[in-house]
């Protein structure tokens, strides 16, 4: 079976700092593979382990530098990689991204059985691109997947995190799944993986290659746009004390003050 693995390179959001001019400083911020996509890669590799005839193709939409991330996935055992890159894709929201990725999947893997994504990307954190891809491909989706139980050529069974418990869901293939984090140890690069990854050819698909029009993609093809960006305001006025023998007493008084004050 053929698996389309959709992954994204993101800035390490824990490294982002504010400048004194209230703008975000992305300088020196490392680009990493979206942490949830690591679980998506694991899920795809797990399926390949039980069914060696599986072929995994990693797709990413992003700037040229995202190619290095694709090479790393090849070293882990992903079979092929495709970079979807065009200046005209810039500013795409989740609708336009879903459309572009679905078009790429149809173009590169018309006979795909499964699309595997991470549940969230840590930069945007919308969890919307996966379902958007599924909609554009008109296939069923299972989101918040914790674990793959079984995957055959016709169906997949997974455990899904619902708000109140764990659902076991079966979907007919082709389908799309979005992976949450798991406890599994991430895979290591294969012995000959790096060499293979360095040698591999990674084709780049442009807007024209995908047969998309400028108004169908990027900022022009996006229903939403950012009208304003600003720094979150933190309103708590901090009083800091160092531990002493009176600390517990102060703490008790403050707890009662805060609980009473909040009740007013």
């Amino acid at each position: 079976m053929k698996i389309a693995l959709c992954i994204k390179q993101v800035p390490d959001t824990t490294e982002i700092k504010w400048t004194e001019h209230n703008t975000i400083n992305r300088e020196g911020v490392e680009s990493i593979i979206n942490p949830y996509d690591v679980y998506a890669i694991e899920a795809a590799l797990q399926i390949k382990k039980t069914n060696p005839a599986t072929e995994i193709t990693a797709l990413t939409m992003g700037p040229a530098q995202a190619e290095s991330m694709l090479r790393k996935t090849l070293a882990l055992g992903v079979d092929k990689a495709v970079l979807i890159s065009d200046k005209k894709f810039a500013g795409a929201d989740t609708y336009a991204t879903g459309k572009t990725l679905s078009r790429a999947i149809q173009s590169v893997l018309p006979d795909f059985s499964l699309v595997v994504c991470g549940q969230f990307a840590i930069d945007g954190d919308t969890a919307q691109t996966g379902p958007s891809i599924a909609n554009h491909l008109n296939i069923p989706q299972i989101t918040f997947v914790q674990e793959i139980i079984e995957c055959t050529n016709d169906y997949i069974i997974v455990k899904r995190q619902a708000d109140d418990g764990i659902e076991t869901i079966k979907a007919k293939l082709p389908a799309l799944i979005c992976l949450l984090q798991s406890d599994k140890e991430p895979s290591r690069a294969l012995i000959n993986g790096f060499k293979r990854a360095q040698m591999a050819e990674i084709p780049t698909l442009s807007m024209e290659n995908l047969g998309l029009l400028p108004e169908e993609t990027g900022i022009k093809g996006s229903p939403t746009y950012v009208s304003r960006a600003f720094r979150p305001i933190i309103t708590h006025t901090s009083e800091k004390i160092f531990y002493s023998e009176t600390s517990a007493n102060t703490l008790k008084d403050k707890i009662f003050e805060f609980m009473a004050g909040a009740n007013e």
Partner: protein
Amino acid sequence: MSETKEILLYAEITRSKYIHTVFFELAQKALELAEKLGGCKISALLFTEPNQLENFKDGFFKSGIDKVYVFEHEKFGTYNTDLYSKLAIELVNEIKPEIMLIGATNEGRDLAPRISSALHTGLTADCTDLDINEKGQLAATRPTFGGKLMATILCKTLPQMATVRPKVFKPLKEDIIRTTEFEIRTPSLTDFEQRTELLDFARTLENEINELDSAEVIVAGGKGVGTTEGFALLKDLADALNGTIGATRGAVDIGLAPKSIQIGQTGKTVRPKLYIACGISGAIQHLVGMQDSEKIIAINTDENAPIFEVADLGIVGDIFKIIPELMKHFSK
């Protein structure tokens, strides 16, 4: 006919068969938005098994809902992405609401992007503020880049869609009694091809409402708590204050606490009256889930921990010293 604008709310029914609390939070916000739009109809979309509507009516009467589109079928006992999105899309195409709001539960986060994508419209996820701008558009504000940046997002197409996490908005302050019209629809699903099937369900929470959603006091621990004994100490404090315990992702990842009590970007968003952060350094991913708490107390040995920046009271010290001393005051 006068053109009345309409705000459509998704009324999620939990597995325990009640209206999810996030619906009442959406209803409160919809009332505010309707007023800013110069008056508009507020409606709800409900999927239910037949003969269940009576159980839900009261909730709609009290929350200012003008009309409920009730879809009834035996299949509506459990959520199904394809089925619910298909009918929601058909309804939106028919009634053409200006705005559609959905709770950002796991069900809502599964459903909403499927609907918006099929309608070729925009969806803003996990909004922390919704407003109407001077042009009458929905201005949806949300944290992005791990909470480092807030972005206000507008939508060029209709309906303007947004999801909102539970507990981000306050629920209705008082009952808004309105005459609610219930329009019952019984779709024939004969041509519906079921592509996913729920095989099994194992409950991990007593109900969908996590205690973290309703507790007035939350005592939360991070990796700095160190041990499960440390968490037992937090539990004692939480019990003494009639509260509940929470944890950071770091603490959950190393097995100190269950995933169900994780607070932060990939866990729950909470807004209790008092949040006591113990051994939590204050990574931004955690802060976005708790910084709207009314009052925050932080206890940490590292005086430079970022958690102190959002705290009302910070104590630089060891929880294993302070909490046992504090507990003495409660047992007296």
